[in-house]
């Protein structure tokens, strides 16, 4: 099976061309913005290195989040464009799963942390099993204090991976049973691994139905009539 993995949900953007379980080419760049300028040239570079063309692909795996809104949309739009042009599926994978897969531990509970900005973090909990990890929680958006409280409440030892550097200073200090570790950002190669599992089990929707996973609040319609009538901040 030949596929492309696109990872743009965090400042660590990367792409990989993978055949079965073998990574044939990968490219990455750490950049808070600018995923749009990195992505297509990076994909092109990988195709050149491997000698494939997009028509060789059987699927595109893409990180649908949680993470940075713009990055996720850049990645998903590119994946859906390739899917439309070459009639291949888009396999959605989530950022926290890709992080957990690269956490190196034999026995610790794994916590994955993705910075989604504005003081919130996407977190999920995993346990290591032979050959991989199993997710033990849903993915949720929380304030940093909630992450600390959850780790503290968990018996046994923990390993915290992801964008720990973005957590408030000292947030995890004094948690003697917890250790911080790499990776900081999900990597396309790990994402490909997550996506391959989903592809083989047919766990993907039609390309047009793949949506970003922002985990944000339910949408609220702006009540313009009220704002115009009552004035700014409802004061007038």
């Amino acid at each position: 099976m030949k596929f492309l993995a696109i990872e743009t949900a965090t400042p660590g953007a990367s792409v990989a061309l993978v055949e079965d379980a073998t990574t044939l080419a990968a490219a990455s760049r750490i950049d808070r913005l600018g995923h749009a300028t990195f992505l297509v040239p990076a994909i092109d570079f990988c195709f050149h290195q491997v000698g494939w063309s997009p028509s060789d692909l059987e699927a595109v795996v893409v990180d649908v989040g949680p993470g940075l809104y713009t990055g996720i949309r850049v990645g998903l739009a590119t994946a859906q464009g390739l899917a439309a042009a070459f009639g291949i599926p888009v396999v959605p994978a989530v950022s926290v799963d890709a992080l957990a897969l690269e956490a190196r531990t034999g026995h610790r509970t794994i916590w994955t942390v993705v910075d989604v900005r504005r003081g919130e973090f996407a977190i999920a909990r995993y346990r290591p099993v032979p050959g991989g990890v199993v997710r033990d929680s849903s993915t949720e958006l929380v304030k940093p204090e909630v992450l600390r409280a959850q780790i503290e409440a968990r018996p046994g030892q923990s390993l915290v991976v992801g964008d720990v550097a973005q957590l408030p200073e000292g947030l995890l200090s004094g948690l003697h049973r917890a250790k911080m570790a790499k990776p900081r950002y999900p990597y396309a190669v790990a994402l490909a691994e997550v996506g391959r599992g989903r592809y083989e089990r047919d766990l993907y929707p039609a390309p047009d139905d793949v949506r970003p996973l922002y985990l944000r609040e339910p949408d609220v319609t702006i009540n313009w009539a009220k704002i115009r009538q009552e004035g700014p901040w409802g004061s007038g």
Partner: protein
Amino acid sequence: MIELRCPTEADTRVSARKLAATLRPGDVIVLSGSLGAGKTLFVSGLATGLGIEETVVSPSFVLVRQYESGFLPLVHVDVYRLGSLNEFDDLDVFELASEGVLVIEWGDAIESTLPDEYLKIEFAVDDDEVRTLTVVGTGSWEDRDLEGLL
């Protein structure tokens, strides 16, 4: 809270320029007040104060305009044409402006998605066309000296 009385357009611009001198990367300024109250004019003055060379044009139709030629990048947003909070989130403006200054016109409409810290400026126009700008800071803005704007 301070109140700035601006009888003329020049006064509005001067107030904005004074504010520009106090701004830091990451600052968020929210403007509210009726159409024609002087919000875009204020942003124009702010841009001048930041050393931006381009002319500031209302972002009402394009939603977001960016100016890079000043001491700090300026991101100017108008939410007047948006229908929902998710549409605002999709613009990802906090990310876009994280190293500069973000100004949001009609920002009161999306108050629940605003960060904890921002400067709120409310524009009121009286019968003599005199503008009064009411400036209120939240978070660390409360500790910042805004008296210089008077």
